[in-house]
Structure formats: C-alpha cells, structure tokens
C-alpha cells in the first residue's frame, strides 16, 4: 500500500507516536468481520446457532449486545438473505445506539441502510423512521436492506440532506452519518488513498457543515442529533461540530460514549465531549461520534 505523503504527514501530526500502530491496522489483512443480529426477525441465540452449524467462530462485540465478531468472510448464507443478520463494521454499531430510539427519527444519509435498520430494531417497529438518501442507486440498496430486514415503519425519502430542514416534519432524533473521506474504510478499499488530499477533505467539510445545520434545524425542541463519520480528520469531525455550536447557540454537546466501548475524547477544546474510536484501541475501523441536544 503506497501512502500519499500528504496523508502520512497529516496523520503523523494527528496521532504522534501512535501513527505506526494506527497504520498497522490497515496494513494487516482482515481476520475478523462483524455482523449485527436483526432482532426484528431473529435472536442472538439463533444466529449463533446458524454460525455454529456453518463452522463460523464468533464472539461478542463489546459495545453492542446484538453485535458479533466472526472469523469468516463467507457470510452471505441463506440466513443472511432471510434477514436474520446484517454484515456491518462493529464501529458502525456505535452511532445508532448513542442516538437511541425515538418516536420521529430521521437518518439523513441512510444508504445502504446499516444504521437505519439498526435504528429500526431499536425502535421495535414503532414510530416513524425516515430513511433518506439523495442517490438513486444507493436508495435501491437501502430499500433492499429495509425489505430484507423486515422493517415496517420506514419511509424512504429522496431529499438533499443539505436542505433537509425544509422538509415538512420535525424529529426527536436525527442521525447524520455524513459523506466523508472514509479513512475508516481503508482496510476494505484502498481507493480512498488515491483521492485523498487536503483540498478534498476541505471540500467535504464544507458540505458536512451545511448538512449538520440542516440536520439540527430539522429537530424539534429538546431533540437529539448524532453526527458521525468514518474518518479521522479534524476538518470533517470536530470542526464541523464546532461550526454547528457557533451557528446555533442553543445547541448543547453531550458526552458521547457507550458501555464497553473504549472511546477517546475529541481533539479540540470546544468539541472535547465528542468521541473518537481508534482501531488501535478497539480493533475496529476508526469512527467519530458527536451527540448534540437542541435547546433545553
């Protein structure tokens, strides 16, 4: 894997002496994968039995009761197509749990549906789940997963997330899993490295700032927003949250975290209560998560 100099120098500044351990995670071949049991159709016990019958080893994901680490990548079994589980990075199980269930919930960049279907199972099929995306091929994948996992309370919409505040509803929970430079997916897709530049990161951050304002404005008073990315840069994470706090004085940052999850605090003073998940701590892809409350 050829690491661009700009990427390397940025992450060496960000991580200091830990940079090598961080990079080692991406250089190693995948040895463990993860799935989330879909409790709308199955139970952890049943899925464990399926894996045992198929000689797939498993263990618990420390921060998600329905999450399982597995030792095989051949996971597209019949039971997968039956919707008993969803193949998903263990880090992706964090944000929906931080957000939790609500009555009117929106996932603004929902495709392909991993986090939206997780929210659906947390909601137990009750309330409204708006699963939004603005890209037609990705919406097809989203609908496929919503159908496969048996979600009955989802409304799939096709709005530009930057203008989501103009939609006719207000929500008590909003998830914004913003499009990002996706350093967290580097283990699975090296393509990111060929695109990675600070110019690209800054252009993504501009869109993310518009999205987080629209996401926040679509909340009802007292509602909660979770902003998450699968990337590492300050510009796409802490700085985006700081932008929201600057633009919306009634926004209040809550300390993000989950039991069983080793999470480090944000890297700037103002966004200190945001959370960073690092592979050298968790053995899972890097993630950023921030929880914001409106008003109150």
């Amino acid at each position, binding site marked *: 894997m050829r690491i661009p100099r700009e990427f390397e120098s940025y992450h060496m500044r960000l991580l200091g002496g830990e940079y090598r351990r961080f990079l080692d995670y991406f250089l190693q071949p995948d040895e463990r994968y993860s799935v989330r049991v879909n409790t709308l159709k199955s139970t952890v016990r049943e899925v464990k039995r399926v894996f045992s019958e198929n000689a797939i080893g498993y263990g618990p994901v420390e921060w998600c009761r329905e999450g399982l680490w597995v030792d095989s990548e051949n996971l597209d079994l019949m039971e997968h*197509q039956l919707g008993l589980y969803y*193949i998903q990075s263990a880090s992706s199980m964090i944000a929906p749990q931080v957000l939790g269930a609500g009555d009117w919930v929106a996932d603004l960049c929902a495709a392909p549906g991993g986090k939206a279907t997780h929210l659906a199972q947390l909601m137990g099929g009750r309330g*409204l789940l708006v699963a939004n995306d603005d890209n037609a091929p990705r919406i097809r994948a989203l609908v496929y997963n919503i159908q496969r996992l048996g979600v009955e309370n989802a409304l799939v919409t096709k709005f530009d997330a930057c203008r989501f505040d103009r939609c006719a509803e207000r929500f008590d929970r909003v998830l914004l899993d913003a499009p990002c430079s996706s350093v967290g997916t580097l283990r699975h897709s090296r393509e990111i490295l060929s695109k990675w530049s600070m110019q690209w990161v800054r252009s993504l951050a501009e869109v993310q700032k518009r999205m987080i304002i629209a996401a926040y404005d679509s909340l009802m008073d007292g509602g909660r927003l979770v902003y998450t990315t699968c990337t590492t840069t300050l510009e796409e994470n802490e700085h985006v949250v700081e932008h929201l706090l600057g633009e919306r004085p009634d926004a209040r940052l809550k300390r993000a975290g989950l039991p069983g999850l080793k999470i480090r605090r944000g890297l700037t003073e103002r966004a200190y209560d945001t959370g960073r998940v690092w592979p050298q701590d968790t053995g899972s892809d890097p993630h950023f998560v921030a929880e914001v409350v409106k008003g109150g």
Partner: protein
Amino acid sequence: MDEGEELLARLNGRYGSSYTVDGRLMLKKDKLFVYSGPESKLRGVWNGLHIGCVDLSLTIEGAQKLGTTASKNTVTVTTNQARAYYDGEDLKGFPGEGPVILKTKDRVIGPGLIVDGAIRNSLPQSRKTSRRGL
C-alpha cells in the same frame, strides 16, 4: 373492507393462515405493503414492507409473516434443499400447483411456485446467496 384488506384475506385464504397486521395495509399497483408507522406529511419513494402481490404470490417477508400460521399450500424441504433454493436452483419432485410457502423444520424460508412437479425458484436475483465474501 378496502382493497388491501381484501387481498390480505385472499392471501390468508390461499395459505390457511391467520396473519393480521399491526398497522396499515396499502395496495400500490399490484403490490401489497404493510406500514406500521404514523401518518406523515412527507412523500416517500418507498413506504413500509412489501408482503405480497395480487397474483397471491408472496415476498420472502410475506411468506415469513403468513408462514408461521399457514396450514395449506406449504411445502417442507430439507435444509440442504433450502440452501440449494437460495443458490438459485429449482427443486424437483413436489406435487401440487401454484404459489406455496416453503419451510424447513426450523423456519419459513420464502415463497415458491410449483409447476409440473417442481418448485420453480421464485426468489429475486438480489435475494439469492452469492457463495462468496461480501
């Protein structure tokens, strides 16, 4: 009884099942959906769960819903046959005619269509197993 309820009654009749919805039934063109959320002012491109069609065929999810109480037009197959079916194969040597619900001893596995003594594969391409890592 509206069109959606009427179709569900026909589906329950076909399979001898007693499935009732916890929500609303919606008939869109020839497709029956169940939606358990509240009314919304938003217009969506997809709403709820597709369970069946006016030709009395079921989706996998529809089969799972009706199959737990179905008492007729069901076929029990072995786990190996079920896996072969999900690989895209037809299953030979089954009497009957028309749409059926397939089960193994453990669970409902989906819809099938018996034609000329064989269960013709009724799974959409996207729901067949890929036999490779994802």
